[in-house]
């Protein structure tokens, strides 16, 4: 009888120890604990910056497409954006490698690494979204016009894959640990605007031609107006019978890759933006380049 009770006690004791050990492991797992408040704050400041930048670029792209007089002009705009995004992605990849090296060398702490990676992840999201928008906008344009104006649709797809790899795994996990689940574009509207601008069923911009004099306010209004119409069917308008995915489905794909629902990736560079984005990232790299 005593033996049985000893055996039972031993089993219970071992079980308790195992539970204790598992508990200890579980407590170590959340890497979030490694992030100090100040490090997280740095990350938050950077992510907010990059998100607004992405939003600005999304909208600037929409305005540019809206403003373009014909498909050739739109194609030129798309080509320039894709080129800028390609450059941007190369920079981001370099920055990611540098950050990893700095962490491994002990030049930066784990928390610092996370703070900077969170911003980087947001910028990759921006680039991804920009590619999605470009792809969607290209879908409404005749392939020959695209070619003549330097748009390589296959290249867009390749870049999207690269961006997806760049933001995969640890990178988006880290972004989530710093900035939470809710990241990416503030609303789909900007992308929808970009899509619609490309596109009446006839391939004309939904808003119709604009006159130069009132473009500025039109641009703003157009955005708002499009919003409404977009609300119902964001991307289909731009099709022209092409099989290219609409902006939403593109986004969904990316989201799936990255991080649940948040991302959709960001637009990134409008040409103009690209300049601007480079600037801003220049700023942030300066800041981050501690």
């Amino acid at each position: 009888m005593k033996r049985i009770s000893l055996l039972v006690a031993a089993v219970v004791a071992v079980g308790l120890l195992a539970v204790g050990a598992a508990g200890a492991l579980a407590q170590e797992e959340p890497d979030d604990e490694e992030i100090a408040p100040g490090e997280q704050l740095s990350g938050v400041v950077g992510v907010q910056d990059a998100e607004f930048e992405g939003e600005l670029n999304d909208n600037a792209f929409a305005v540019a497409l809206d403003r373009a007089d014909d498909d050739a002009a739109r194609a030129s705009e798309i080509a320039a954006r894709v080129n800028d995004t390609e450059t941007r992605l190369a920079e981001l990849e370099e920055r990611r490698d540098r950050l990893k090296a700095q962490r491994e060398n002990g030049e930066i702490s784990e928390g610092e690494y996370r703070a900077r990676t969170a911003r980087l992840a947001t910028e990759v999201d921006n680039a991804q979204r920009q590619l999605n928008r470009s792809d969607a906008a290209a879908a409404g344009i005749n392939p020959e016009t695209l070619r003549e104006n330097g748009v390589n649709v296959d290249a867009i797809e390749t870049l999207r894959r690269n961006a997806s790899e760049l933001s995969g795994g640890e990178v988006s996990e880290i972004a989530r640990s710093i900035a939470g689940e809710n990241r990416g574009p503030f609303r789909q509207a900007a992308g929808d605007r970009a899509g619609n601008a490309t596109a009446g069923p006839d391939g004309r911009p939904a808003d119709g031609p604009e006159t130069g004099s009132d473009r500025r306010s039109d641009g703003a209004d157009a955005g708002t107006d499009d919003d409404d119409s977009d609300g119902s069917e964001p991307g289909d308008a731009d099709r022209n019978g092409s099989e290219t995915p609409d902006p939403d489905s593109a986004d969904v794909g990316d989201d799936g890759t990255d991080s649940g629902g948040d991302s959709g990736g960001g637009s990134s560079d409008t040409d103009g933006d690209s300049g601007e984005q480079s600037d801003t990232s220049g700023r942030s790299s300066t800041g981050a380049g501690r």
Partner: protein
Amino acid sequence: MIVRRLTGILVVACWVGVLSSAAAMPAVAQPDDEAFRVDLDERGDAEVSVTYAYDLTTEDEADAFEVISNDEATRTAFVDRFESRMRSVAERSENRTGREMSVGDGAVELERTDDTGVVTLSVRWEGLAAAEGDALTLGEPFASGFSPDRPLTVSAPDGYAIAATTPTASEDGASTATWDAGTDLGGFEVEMTAEGGTAGSDADGTGGTPTANGTEDTPGFGVGVAAVALLAAVLLGERR
């Protein structure tokens, strides 16, 4: 018709040119615009704001900024995220200091000046600084790895003066102190005293009285002891 198309092409050509040159331009710093500000009141609560500056060098960018400025939903989403993230930082700071904190009243202001879009996000952060008698001390979250990518300015409440700063501020005033972007803020602490008050040097309790976290280092301890005790008890019983 032809004229119109030609005009369109010219416009696009010029535009592409502008964009290319914009892309090639070096980063333009906006030191006067970008800032991180902490404006404290006598209870240790603060208005915390971050100001960002964006170059609006093309008409598209300027229009895009206007679109966002007029888009209530976007602005709300932007603020909500900021507030929620700052709340998360406050929770971590609370764990470190043991001082109760809360974050709310998020707001955003967008303003365009010439070719710069200035965006200021702000929250009200209660319990940010420790208040003891007529002294205030600010430490977390700036003391733990915050790396400012823009100048950080701390303003003491009305009627208070800054008594000491660690590290030494880049710019010092009677009631404000500013650290340049890139300053290593390790050991950050700002002591403020009510003018005419006597406090000053003992701001310590603030900066970071460690809290419960220390006990979390031994999560399995209680269970382990229970298991060993149980075994010992049974073994003792066996011997008897």
